[in-house]
Each structure stands twice: as C-alpha cells, then as structure tokens.
C-alpha cells in the first residue's frame, strides 16, 4: 500500500536501500509488534505478578507486603484446602474415565452407523454448545424433590425412594459432575470419530482376512492407533474437570460448593478467598497450587506423547 508508493516516489529513501531480506525482517517484527506488547502486558507480567502476590498479604483493605511462604504454610494447615483438594481430584477421577468411556463407546458404534449418522451425532453434540451456567440451573431443577424435580418424579413412579441429590454431602458431588460430563461428551465423541476415521481401512481389511474377531481388532488395531487421540482427550478433559467452576457455582447459589463444602473445587475456593473474603494474597497462593497441578498433568502428557 503506502509502502509501495514510498518506494516508487523516493528511490533514494532508506526503505529502498534495504535488501529484500532486511525488509522481510522489518515486516515480520511489524506484524509481531502489537501482539508482543499484548503478550508481555496481559500474559507474562501477570504471570510473574501472580507468583509475587502469592507471597504477600495483599487484601482489599491493605496494600501488599511481602510475607514469604506464609500463605503456603497457611494453605497446607487449612483443612478446607485439603477438602477442596480432595473434591477437585474427585471431579477428575470420576469425570475423566466415565466421560471417556461413554464417548468412546458411542463414537465406536456411531462410526459404523450410516443411517441418520449426522442426526444422531448432532443429538450427542448439542449439549457441548450450551452455556454451563445456564445448564447448571436446568440440572438444579431436575434434582429437586417431588413434585418439581424430574429425576425424583421418575424414581418415584418406579417406586424408588426419593434421593436428596444436591442436599446430600455424598450425592452432591456426582450430581454436580453429571452436567459437566454430559456437556463434554459431544466434543469427545467428535474427536474420537476423527481419530477413528484417520485409521487406514486397509488395516481393518487385512485383519479381517487374517480372521481376527471384532474384539481382537479393537484391542490390537483400533485402540493402539487411537493412542494420540486418547492422550489428547485425557489431558484435555482432565484439565477441564480440574478447573470446574461454572456448574458448581450455579447449581447451589445459596451456598456455593456446599453442602458443607462437599462439592467445592479449587477454583471456587480461589474465587471465594479473593472476592468474598478479599484475601487476595492467599487466593494468589491457591492459584499457584492450581498451576502446579495443571503443570504436572501437562508434563505427564508430554511424556506419554513421546512414548508413542
């Protein structure tokens, strides 16, 4: 545009004396200038700041002053933290295998279905496009006692006793997890379908000629070749479950994370520490712990990917 005009208008200018390679470099840094400022200010600086804040007693009422590892000491001694830590891992340990098992089974069979294939796929995929905060309210309604709650109504029509769901310390966490699993299935199914389709048909044909059973084909061909997809989905959904917040916050707004903190995940604890108790420094230490947990998961992923 204007650069071209400059070059023609001022043959003696600095720009025209540059070699093509030099111009190339200038264009590159020109393209990167605004994004680099963005990443420096919005990503890198806050990252360092988060580590620094985690070592301060910053709160709304007083400016940050350095307290070293005090916040971490307090966190380790806080029984609520260990409860929350346990809950967070329960979301992960229940959510990831259950959702991956269901989505794999669905994808495995859906891959062979031709009749109304894209319609059925759409049925499974639709929940992925919903807003978690909105769906938490739908599920909250489902879990209500008779006569409002759909699930208890169905149970009672079969003569099964009423379940407390969100009101019970043992049932609340799975009840909160269900909408998260439900909403994530569609994504996992689509990714599994893509992975299944990437396996060359000739492998299957060869296996059939060799007389392998469907079960043997699944074990010896499909699953091994699906490993990269599987690793990606394990990590992706693990990170999702470790960061669960929207559902938990909305499904019990009277007492988020309740009853008795039995559904409270780490991100909700961070939110409450920072924006209900205004202990920003302490909350920052909790975010660093979340970071470390996610870092370990990512490193395990890298390791698994290299082994393939």
């Amino acid at each position, binding site marked *: *545009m204007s650069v*071209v005009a400059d070059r023609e208008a001022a043959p003696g200018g600095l720009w025209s004396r540059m070699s093509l390679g030099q111009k*190339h470099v200038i*264009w*590159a*840094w020109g*393209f*990167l200038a605004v*994004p680099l400022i*963005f*990443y420096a200010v*919005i*990503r890198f*600086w*806050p990252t360092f700041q*988060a580590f620094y804040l985690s070592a301060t007693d910053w709160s709304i009422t007083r400016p940050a002053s350095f307290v070293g590892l005090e916040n971490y000491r307090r966190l380790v001694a806080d029984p609520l933290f260990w409860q929350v830590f346990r809950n967070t891992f329960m979301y992960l340990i229940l959510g990831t295998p259950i959702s991956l098992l269901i989505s794999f089974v*669905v994808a495995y069979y*859906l*891959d062979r*279905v031709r009749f109304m294939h894209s319609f*059925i796929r*759409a*049925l499974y*995929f*639709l*929940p992925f*496009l*919903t*807003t*978690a*905060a*909105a769906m938490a*309210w*739908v599920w909250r*309604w*489902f879990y209500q006692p008779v*006569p*409002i709650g*759909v699930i208890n109504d169905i149970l009672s029509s079969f003569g099964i006793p009423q379940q407390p769901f969100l009101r019970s310390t043992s049932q609340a966490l799975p009840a909160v997890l269900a909408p998260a699993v*439900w909403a994530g*299935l*569609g994504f996992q199914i689509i*990714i599994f*379908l893509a992975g299944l389709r990437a396996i060359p048909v000739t492998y*299957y044909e060869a296996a059939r*000629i060799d007389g392998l059973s469907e079960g043997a084909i699944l074990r010896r061909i499909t699953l091994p070749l699906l490993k990269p*997809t599987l690793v990606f989905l394990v990590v992706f959904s693990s*990170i999702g479950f470790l960061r669960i*917040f*929207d559902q938990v*916050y*909305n499904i019990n707004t009277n007492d988020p994370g309740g009853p008795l903190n039995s559904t409270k995940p780490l*991100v909700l604890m*961070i*939110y409450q520490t*920072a*924006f209900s108790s205004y202990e920003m420094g302490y909350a920052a230490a909790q975010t660093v712990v*979340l*970071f470390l947990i996610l*870092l370990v998961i990512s490193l395990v992923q890298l390791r698994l990917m290299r082994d393939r």
Partner: protein
Amino acid sequence: MTSAASPQGLPMPRIRPGRIVAWTLLFIGGVIMVTPLLFMLSTSLKDASQVYDLRVIPEAPTLDNYIEILGDGRFTRWFFNSMIVAVIVTLSNVFFDSLVGYTLAKFRFRGRYIVFIAILSTLMIPTEMLVLPWYLMASQFGWLDSYWGIMFPGMMTAFGTFLMKQFFEGVPNDFLEAARIDGLNEFTIWWKIAMPLVTPALSALAIFTFLGNWTAFFWPLIVTTSADLYTLPVGLSSFAVEQSIQWEKIMTGASIATLPTLIIFLFLQRYIVRGVMLAGLKG
C-alpha cells in the same frame, strides 16, 4: 469403512441384527442427551400452573414468559453485551492469531523461535492464575465494569496462534513468492493470498472463540459489578437467584442464553463439526 460392497466376498452383509440394536441404543442415548434441552424449552413455554406437569409437549404453550422476560429489558441488554463481547473478541482473534501464526510460519528472522516458544509457553498458565493480576490491572486502569474489561484478557490466544501457524505452514511458498514478484506488499500477501487458503482453520478458530466467549462465566462474573454490563451467563445467574423457585422463568432465561448457539449449529453443523475436528487434532 465397513461398506457392504466387499469385492472379496467377506462376510459383511448390509444389515445385521446387531447393527439394528446398536443403532437403536445410539438413538435412545442421543434422545437422552437432548432431554435436558427439551425439558428446558418446554418448561419455558408453560405458565406457572403447568410447571409441575412434566409432559414434554406443553398442554397450552405460551410465549408469555419470553414476552415478560424480554420486555423487562435486562435480558436484551445482557444478550447485546454478550454479542458485542463475543463478536469483537472473535474478530480480534481471527485477525491477530492468524497474523502472528502466519509470521511465525512463513518469515525467517532471528528471534522467531524464541517468540514462538514464548507465546506457546503461555498455554501452560491457567487463566485462573492471571485473574487476580488482571483484576488489579483492571481496577488500576479503570477497566472494571466495562466492555474492554471483559474483553482484554482474550483478545489474542496462544491456542489460536498455534492452530493458525500449523495451517499456514501448509500454504505453498510459491504462491507467496509469485505475489511478491507481482509487487504486492507483505500485508496484502497475507490478507489477500494466504488468508483465503486457510478458511477452514479460520472458521474453526472463529467458532471456538465465539463459543468460549459466549458461554464464559468466571471472568465476566469477576470484572462486572453493575447489572448493565453483565454478560448473558452472569445476568442469567443473578436473575435465577432472584426468581428463586419460579422455574418456568429460569428455564426461559436459560433458553435465551442457549438458543443462539443451538440455532447457529443447525445452520452450520458441517462447518462446526469439521472445525472441532480440526482444532482438536491440530491444536
């Protein structure tokens, strides 16, 4: 894959009883998957007296809940806020992520690798960790309770940059060289020549960014304090708390938050599914 036409005469008949059972189970599972959505929609079309009647097809469907809620003005405002935020952030990502991805894929210069690693490394930092510094930044610069305050953290993403870089690497250099010989400047080459060649990736990026921002809850909840600036999920949450047990009103609000993405999906199903596959496999 398991097509019925098998030239070697392998035992693969067109229809087996197992197939029909599998299809039926898949179909039932799919219906169960959309049941929460059906209940949400059907209850939004019922009046307060019918809520306890759990039939999916309402006896006397009515749009009164929608008229009341949309007439109140708050939901239209929140809808508008969410739309503004999601559209601007999406456009920004489509522009900047692909510009950076293109630069990293197609330019050779000292520092390229460091820039790439630096941007990629931000993927390791969960946004929850940055939320407190962002909040501090927003309050110092007066960004709390503003559109910019909601949008600024997501204007560019490493995920999008990485995705676009992968795709630009597949664009043949000959195309770009030919354009250079024709005297086009580098910006025009990127915008006019390279960008049209990666439209599937661009649509994947746009779909993911829009969906992510449309449904975002955590950061908008933190950064907005006045109801005028709530996004739809945050507004719905505050609205639902205030309605307490008026489930037909809450379901109407939830439908308003959910329907736009579902309707978009009905029209763009092919692109969205392909986009998810692309992003999932390359990203």
